[in-house]
C-alpha cells in the first residue's frame, strides 16, 4: 500500500510528478491555439493596462468561440476593472497567454482596454500631488 506523505517524512522520490507538484497539464499556449501574440490588431497590452467589461457588449451566451479561460477572464472583470497583471495572477495564467486571450475579447467587443498614459505626458502635476497626498493619508 502506498504510504501517505507525513509531515516528518521526506517526500517520496518522484513525488514531484504527482498532482499540483507536476505543474500544469496543459501547455500554456494550447489555450490560445498556439498563438503567441494577440490577433490582427497587433496590440500589446501593458501590464497595467486596465480591462473592463464593455457594457455595450453583445451577450456572449454559449458562443463556442470562447474557451474556459476566456470566460474566466470575463468573470474576473465582472467584479471590477482589473489590470492585465492582476488578471494574469488571478486567473493563474502566464501574462503572454492573457494578452492573447484579451486580444480575442477586445476584437469580439466584450472588453474595453484603457492604455496607460504615455510617459511624455505622464506626470501631470495635479495627479502627482494627488498621489503624494494619497500616500501620506494611507
Amino acid at each position: 500500500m502506498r504510504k501517505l506523505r507525513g509531515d516528518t517524512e521526506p517526500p517520496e522520490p518522484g513525488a514531484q510528478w504527482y498532482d499540483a507538484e507536476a505543474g500544469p497539464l496543459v501547455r500554456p499556449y494550447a489555450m490560445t491555439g498556439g498563438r503567441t501574440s494577440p490577433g490582427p490588431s497587433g496590440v500589446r497590452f501593458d501590464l497595467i493596462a486596465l480591462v473592463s467589461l464593455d457594457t455595450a457588449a453583445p451577450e456572449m451566451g454559449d458562443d463556442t468561440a470562447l474557451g474556459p479561460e476566456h470566460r474566466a477572464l470575463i468573470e474576473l472583470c465582472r467584479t471590477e476593472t482589473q489590470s492585465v497583471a492582476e488578471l494574469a495572477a488571478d486567473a493563474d495564467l502566464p501574462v503572454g497567454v492573457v494578452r492573447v486571450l484579451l486580444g480575442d475579447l477586445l476584437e469580439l467587443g466584450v472588453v474595453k482596454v484603457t492604455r496607460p498614459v504615455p510617459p511624455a505626458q505622464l506626470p501631470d502635476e495635479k495627479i502627482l500631488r494627488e498621489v503624494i497626498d494619497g500616500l501620506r493619508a494611507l
Partner: protein
Amino acid sequence: MASEHSEGAGADTTALALKILVAGGFGVGKTTLVGAVSEIRPLRTEEQLSEIGESVDDVAAVDQKTTTTVAMDFGRITIRSGLSLYLFGTPGQDRFWFLWDELSQGALGAVVLADTRRLEDCFPAVDYFEHRRIPFVVAVNCFAGARAYGAQDVSRALDLDRGTPVVLCDARDRDSGKEVLIRLVEYAGRMHTARLLDSVG
C-alpha cells in the same frame, strides 16, 4: 513591438494607473517592500519565455527544457477610485533584463533597493535607470546589524547624479515604504518639470 494607439476619444475620464518599479539585487527586500505598502497581498504574474537550449552539455538531454518561467511580484495602492499605483518587483537575474524594458515603459519612476553590505548588487539597476533617464531614488534597506552608512556615503559610493535622492528605509515597515514612494513621486515631478523647462528654453 506594435505601436500603442489611443483607444478612442473621451478616455480622459477613465481610470488611470501608474507604475513604479522596485529594483535591486537578489534578496535585498524587493518583494518585502512591495508587500509592506500594498493593499493587496503581493500577487505574482508569470511570463513564460522560450529559451535557447544549451548547445553543449545536452548529451543526455533528449527532451530539452525549452521554456522558463519568470515571476514578477506586484502590489497595488488605490489612491482614489480611478487612480491607482502599481508596484512591480523586477526580476533579479541579469538574463531577464529584456523584461525590464517592457516593465519600465511608461513607468513613473523606480526605487532601487540597496544593501550596504553588498552595494555592488544594485549597480546594474542604477546604470539602467540613469541611461534611460527614468527617475529613481535609492532606498537603503537598513538590515539589522548592517553597519550604518549615511545617505551621503551611499550617494558617493554609487556615484549618483546630483539630485538623485537617497533614502534610508526599512523595507518591512509600511510607513517607511510610503516615505520612499513619496520621495520618488516628488522627485519624478521635479525631473519632469526640469525637462519641460529644458525643452522650451
